[in-house]
C-alpha cells in the first residue's frame, strides 16, 4: 500500500535574496521525485529587502491548497525565524542561520513595527528577549526540531572547493538552506541536483556553485543530524510534467486562444502574464503560412503609458478585428471604467484579464484578495452589462481565458476574466492533458470579413447581436455616442430605446447561450444540508477542506459560481431551494460581495460568512475551522487570519 505523503514547508528570507530560485528548486525536486506540488510566492511590495517566502505543499494526492502549520521552515535570515515562529508544527523542523542567534527583532530594520510589537509582547510574556535565540528556545520547547546552519562557514567551504568566485551569494546561501531542509524531508542530493540543473540549465557559472553548495549542506546534515531517510518515490515518478504559475497558464491560454494584441501598464500581479506572452508570442499560422509566406506571426504586446491607453488601444485593435486583451488589477481597472462603457456602447469584443489584489487603493499591492467582484460586474457607467467569469484554479483559468475571447466575439461585448494574486503567483504541476489547446476551440461569432452594400454595424436583431465587420473592411462607424443601426450618432428617442433594448436583449442571449454547467459547479454531496458558496481561487482550499470535514462526519456541498454576470439566478435558486439549510459564503473581502449578489439575484439571504481579510491565501484548515464554528456556535461571521 502506498503511504500518503503530505508535506508542507516554508522557505523564507529577504525579498530578492534568492527565495525565488530556492522555491522553484524545491518544487522541481519534488516533481522529479514524482509528487504533486503547489507553491506560492508571498513577497513584499518594497521590491528588495523585506521578508518574503515561498510556501509549498507536496502530496501524493491532489495538491489543492496550502496548509499551516508546516512541517518545515527554512529561515535564511533572522526575520524569517521570528516571522514564522507560529507556523511550524510540533515535530517539524526549523532550519536557521546559526550566526543569527543573537539578532534582536527590534534591530531588524525591514521588520514591520507591528510585528516587532507582537514579538516583544510574546517574548515578554515568557520573560525572554525577542531574539532569534529565544525563538529557537521557544520552538524547541514546543517540540520543534531546530537545526542551526553555520552558513558563513559553509559558504566559505563552497568558495574554497570551487576555487573560483561564487556567481551569486544569494543563490548559494538559499540552496544550502533548502538542501538542509529537504534533507529533513527525505529528499536526497540526487533529486536536489536534478532540480538545480532544471532551474539553471546550461549556465555552468551558476550551476557549479549551487551543486557544490547543495553537497556542502547535505554533508553537513549527514555529519550533524544523523541518518538520512529517503522519501519514497511518488506516484508520478518518471512522467514528464510541467510546472507553471497562474500568470503563465493564462498567458499560454491567450496565445492558443488566438490572441494577437495585448496591452498592459505594469502592475502587480498582472505584468508577469504580459511578460510571458512577450517571451513566447509567436502564433503558428498553419495553412495560412503558405498564403502569407510567413511561418508565424507575433502577438503584439504593448506596454502603454497608462491603463486608460491600455484598454483604449485594446478596444481599437478589437474593433479592427484583432483578438485583443488587456491585463490589469484593481487600480488599473478603475482607470479603465470609462472605456469599458465605451466598449459596451460600441459593442466591441475586448477581454480584460483582471487579477485582483488587496485594496482599496494601492492597499497591499503584492498580496491577494477578492474585493473586486462587484467592481468588475458594475464597472462602467450607464447600464453596461458585460460578462464576468471567475476561475477557481489553473486548469479553469486556462480554458476560461480561451472562452473569454470566444464569448467576447460571439456576443460582441467586453468580457472580464476575474482572477487574483494568489492564483497569479501560485505554481502547480500540470500534465499535458490538463491544458489541451484544442479542447475549447476558437469561435469568432457572427462575422463578415467583406461587408455587403448597405451593411449596418448595429442592425437590430432578435438576439441583440449584429454581424461584426472589422473596422476598415467597409465604410462604417463604431460610435461611443448613442447611434442608429448604421452607427451614426443619434439622440432620437426611438433610436435610443431601440439600442438600449438591443443591448439588453444581447445580455439575455448571453444568459441563455452559456451552458449552465459553465456558469457554476456543485461539488460534493448534493443532498448535504450545509452549502459553501464561493468564487475564484478559494475553490481549492474549500475542496481540500471538504475532504477534512467529511472525515470528521460533516457533510457539506460547495456551490462554485463561475459566471457571475450574467448571474445564473434560476439554477442558484433551484440548488439552494426553499429550504437552503446553512449557507456559508467564503470570501476574501469584508463586505460579503458574493452573498450580496446572491441575495440581489435570488432573494436568498446567505446568513453566514467565512472571511479572509489579511491579504494572505485562504488555507483549507481555516475553512474547516470556520465551518465548525458556524455549526457549533451559529456564528454569523468568522474571520480567519492565517499567514505571515
Amino acid at each position, binding site marked *: 500500500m502506498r503511504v500518503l505523503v503530505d508535506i508542507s514547508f516554508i522557505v523564507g*528570507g*529577504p*525579498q*530578492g*535574496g*534568492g*527565495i*525565488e*530560485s530556492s522555491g522553484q528548486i524545491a518544487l522541481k525536486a519534488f516533481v522529479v521525485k514524482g509528487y504533486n506540488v503547489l507553491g506560492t*510566492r508571498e*513577497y513584499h511590495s518594497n*521590491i*528588495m*529587502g523585506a521578508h518574503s517566502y515561498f510556501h509549498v505543499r507536496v502530496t501524493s494526492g491532489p495538491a489543492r491548497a496550502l496548509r499551516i502549520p508546516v512541517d518545515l521552515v527554512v529561515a*535564511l*535570515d533572522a526575520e524569517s525565524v521570528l516571522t514564522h515562529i507560529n507556523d511550524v508544527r510540533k515535530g517539524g523542523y526549523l532550519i536557521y542561520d546559526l*550566526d543569527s542567534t543573537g539578532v534582536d527583532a527590534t*534591530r531588524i*530594520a*525591514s521588520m514591520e513595527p507591528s510585528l516587532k510589537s507582537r514579538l516583544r509582547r510574546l517574548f515578554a510574556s515568557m520573560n525572554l528577549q525577542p531574539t532569534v535565540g529565544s525563538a529557537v528556545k521557544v520552538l524547541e520547547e514546543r517540540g520543534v526540531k531546530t537545526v542551526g546552519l553555520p*552558513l*558563513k562557514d559553509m*559558504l*566559505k567551504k563552497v*568558495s574554497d572547493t570551487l576555487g573560483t*568566485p*561564487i*556567481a*551569486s*551569494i*544569494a*543563490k548559494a*546561501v538559499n540552496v544550502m538552506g533548502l538542501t538542509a531542509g529537504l534533507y529533513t524531508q527525505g529528499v536526497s542530493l540526487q533529486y536536489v541536483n536534478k532540480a538545480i540543473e532544471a532551474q539553471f540549465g546550461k549556465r555552468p557559472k*551558476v550551476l557549479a556553485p549551487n551543486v557544490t553548495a547543495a553537497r556542502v549542506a547535505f554533508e553537513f546534515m549527514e555529519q550533524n543530524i544523523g541518518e538520512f531517510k529517503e522519501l519514497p518515490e511518488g506516484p508520478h515518478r518518471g512522467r514528464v510534467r510541467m510546472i507553471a504559475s497562474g500568470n503563465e497558464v493564462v498567458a499560454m491560454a491567450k496565445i492558443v486562444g488566438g490572441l494577437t494584441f495585448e496591452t498592459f501598464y*505594469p*502592475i*502587480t*500581479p*498582472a*505584468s*508577469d502574464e504580459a*511578460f510571458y506572452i512577450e517571451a513566447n508570442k509567436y502564433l503558428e499560422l498553419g495553412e495560412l503560412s503558405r498564403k502569407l509566406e510567413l511561418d508565424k506571426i507575433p502577438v503584439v504586446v504593448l506596454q502603454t503609458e497608462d491603463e486608460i491607453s491600455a484598454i483604449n488601444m485594446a478596444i481599437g485593435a478589437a474593433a479592427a478585428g484583432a483578438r485583443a486583451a488587456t491585463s490589469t488589477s484593481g487600480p488599473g481597472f478603475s482607470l479603465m471604467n470609462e472605456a469599458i462603457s465605451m466598449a459596451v456602447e460600441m459593442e466591441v469584443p475586448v477581454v480584460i484579464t483582471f487579477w485582483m489584489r488587496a485594496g482599496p487603493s494601492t492597499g497591499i499591492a*503584492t498580496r491577494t484578495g477578492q474585493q473586486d467582484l462587484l467592481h468588475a460586474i458594475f464597472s462602467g457607467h450607464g447600464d453596461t452589462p458585460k460578462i464576468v467569469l471567475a476561475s477557481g484554479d489553473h486548469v479553469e483559468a486556462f480554458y476560461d481565458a480561451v472562452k473569454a475571447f470566444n464569448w467576447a466575439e460571439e456576443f460582441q461585448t467586453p468580457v472580464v476574466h476575474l482572477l487574483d494574486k494568489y492564483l497569479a*503567483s501560485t505554481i502547480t504541476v500540470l500534465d499535458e492533458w490538463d491544458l489541451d489547446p484544442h479542447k475549447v476551440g476558437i469561435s469568432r461569432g457572427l462575422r463578415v470579413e467583406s461587408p455587403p452594400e448597405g451593411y449596418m454595424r448595429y442592425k437590430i436583431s432578435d438576439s441583440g447581436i449584429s454581424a461584426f465587420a472589422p473596422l476598415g473592411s467597409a465604410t462604417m462607424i463604431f460610435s461611443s455616442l448613442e447611434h442608429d443601426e448604421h452607427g451614426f450618432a443619434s439622440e432620437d428617442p426611438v433610436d435610443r430605446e431601440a439600442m438600449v433594448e438591443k443591448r439588453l436583449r444581447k445580455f439575455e442571449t448571453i444568459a441563455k447561450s452559456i451552458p449552465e454547467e459553465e456558469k457554476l459547479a456543485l461539488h460534493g454531496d448534493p443532498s448535504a444540508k450545509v452549502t459553501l458558496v464561493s468564487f475564484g481561487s478559494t475553490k481549492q482550499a474549500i475542496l481540500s477542506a471538504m475532504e477534512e470535514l467529511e472525515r470528521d462526519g460533516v457533510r457539506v456541498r460547495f456551490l462554485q459560481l463561475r459566471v457571475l454576470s450574467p448571474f445564473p439566478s434560476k439554477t442558484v435558486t433551484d440548488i439552494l431551494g426553499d429550504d437552503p439549510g446553512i449557507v456559508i459564503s467564503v470570501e476574501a473581502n469584508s463586505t460579503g460581495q458574493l452573498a450580496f449578489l446572491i441575495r440581489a439575484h435570488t432573494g436568498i439571504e446567505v446568513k453566514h460568512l467565512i472571511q479572509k481579510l489579511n491579504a494572505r491565501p485562504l488555507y483549507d484548515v481555516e475553512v474547516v475551522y470556520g465551518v465548525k464554528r458556524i455549526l457549533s456556535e451559529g456564528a454569523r461571521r468568522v474571520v480567519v487570519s492565517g499567514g505571515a
Partner: protein
Amino acid sequence: MEIGVVKRLRGGLGCFNCANWLPHVHYPFAGYCTVWGGITFEDYYCAKHVMMSVDVEWFYWCATCKVRLTREEALTHRALGHRVVRGAYVDPDVREEIYEG
C-alpha cells in the same frame, strides 16, 4: 600576499572594516572585494586592507538598517553602533530573484 586568502582576523582588522569591501546586501557575512575583484568573507584579511572611515563626502551604506546614507547620516548610524560601509554588493543576477510585478 594574495588578496582574500587570509582567513583570520588580524589585530581587529578584516574585510568587515575594510573600505575596499562591500558586504552582500542580504547576507553581509560575505561580500565583494573591489581590489581583488571577487567574493571574500567578513573575517578575511589581506595586506591591502584600508580602514573604513566616513571622512569624505560619499553615499554610504548601513548594513544594519540596509539603507543608503549621506555622510552626515553615516556618522549618526556609526555613533549608534551600526555597521556603516562604503556600499553594498548586489549579486549580478539579482534580477532573477525579483518579481516583475
